[in-house]
């Protein structure tokens, strides 16, 4: 991949959820696949994540969330992004998210939700296909 066309990804932890192994494994997997990855660290507010995404000029934000607060925090994050004029920044998520919540999240602009049992390769492929420049 051409270096100036590398996909830039922000891996984010929002809210108080302190489990970040999944987030860090995915971050490393995306780096290994040639992407540029920034990790927010724990306990960020949606506002802080939006600020980081704009400053780092990322293509997509991948939120890891296992705390059950996804229905509040993810739609809020999408809304703040849109309000900041960053409709082009993608928003995907992974973690402990019940099946029933996936469709409402999609409608709220979280375009993809990865649950337990997803491989790193699945996520790499999704991000490459959706956010890579056309060949």
């Amino acid at each position: 991949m051409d270096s100036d066309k590398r996909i830039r990804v922000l891996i984010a932890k929002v809210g108080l959820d302190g489990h970040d192994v999944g987030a860090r494994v995915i971050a490393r997997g995306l780096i290994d696949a040639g992407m540029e990855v920034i990790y927010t660290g724990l306990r960020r507010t949606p506002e802080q994540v939006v600020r980081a995404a704009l400053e780092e000029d990322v293509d997509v934000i991948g939120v890891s969330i296992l705390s059950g607060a996804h229905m509040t925090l993810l739609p809020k994050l999408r809304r703040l992004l849109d309000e900041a004029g960053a409709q082009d920044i993608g928003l995907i998520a992974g973690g402990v998210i019940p099946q029933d919540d996936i469709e409402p999240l999609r409608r709220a602009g979280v375009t993809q939700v990865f649950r337990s049992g997803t491989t790193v390769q699945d996520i790499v492929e999704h991000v490459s296909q959706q956010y890579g420049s056309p060949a």
Partner: protein
Amino acid sequence: MYRTEPFVVSAYSGFGEAQACNQRFRTLLDWGAEQILVALDLPTQCGYDSDHEMSTGEVGQVGVAIDTLADMEALFDGIDIRQVKRIGTLGNSLGPVVLALFAALGQRRGIKWSDYTVNLQNDPLKEYIARGTQILPHGPAARLATDCVAWCTEHARHWSPMTVCVNHINAGGAGSSRATAIALANALHYIELLLAQGYGIDQVAPLLHMFPDERHDFFTTVANLRALRRVWARLMKERYGATSSEAMALRTTVYGHGQEALQEPLNNVSRIAFGTLAYALGGASYVYIASYDEAVSTPTEESVKVALRTQQIIAHEHGFSDTIDPLGGSYFVEYLTNEVEHQILAALAEIDQAGGAPAVIDSGLGRRWMSEGAVRRQRALDSGARPWVTVNKWPQKGERPDTAFRIHRESAEIQQRRLAQVKAQRDPQRVAQALAAVDAACASGANMVPPVLAAVEAWVTVGEICDRWRRHFGEFTPSTDF
């Protein structure tokens, strides 16, 4: 361990607001749970009240919300705490607050501290590398945690105010031997802080428990518990000169797990049973167990019941717990025990060399071990090198609609209302005095438990106390390494 009775059948439970959660506790006790460990929601664990901005969307989600002593009273309403073997919670970053809440619960009912038993996890050091509920920098956090142990040596010698955890460090990827070494280094750090204050090893060591973890290999699990007890006994005796057998004998809490999958979640019942059996055969003292739907959400009442019954079956049927150390003498288990013991000691020597527990956090050593292991583990699963039925072997889609447990929609509102009510009814002068005493202990280094106990009895909130700590000690800095 099981010379007189089997392991203690324990339940880790909590959700929503205290009144609804109280019903679940009563149900668990009716089913025969012998110990209840309260799962707290993340705002409580991170020292924020339910009306704080950071609590948005999180109130009551992964555990029950506790803002004040009023919530504790609602939570244990109608439950005779003397009839339960132990009650407690994690409270890793707010040890003195949760200890005070449990102590005040007895005081308000006129029950002596000697008549019930409190267990805390209260192990802040691992939060910085694994679990992530840290509030303060790790120096003052470790001091506050040891204040709980010191207080118990005087007021409640049979309580267990600290459970040092391997669990989350291994779950985070470190591997069970390295994770055991990190946890041991943390335990030694707490012990040394207490010894430096003039406490004796025979006084403090019996108050510490450990929470070992190995969830992928049955026989390594048995070996890990056997090796850990050996290493602990020798460290207490040889490094610190312990002479009492209580100081050298290590009591353990475990959480039975398998490699739970989202696909066909009922299969997790057998995975968890095997994982738990390994802990029982390894001689664990207090056993918790995962519910088969934990990969989906907070467990439903039905799945919690299956988990509890699984524990009772392992404790009482098949003769699993009739014999102490039933696998002792097996060529394979003895070989593995020696092997694991060598691995633990080698990793501990590496940590000692690096500067002990604080260096594991500050130098990034802990997170490095965890990240390396987590990537290795994920690759093994992705490639199929580590078999996982229904995921990488006979793979199934996890598309079945979930029956995820939901907390009541109005939980957060009920909680915020109760908090507002307590704040409106309390005596502001008493609150101010109590908080001033907390400030004074921050500054002087005096034991934090007495002023915090007075504060919770004056209806000061969890968040208000933690805010004073934040003001004096500062806040932790999140790591952005991966």
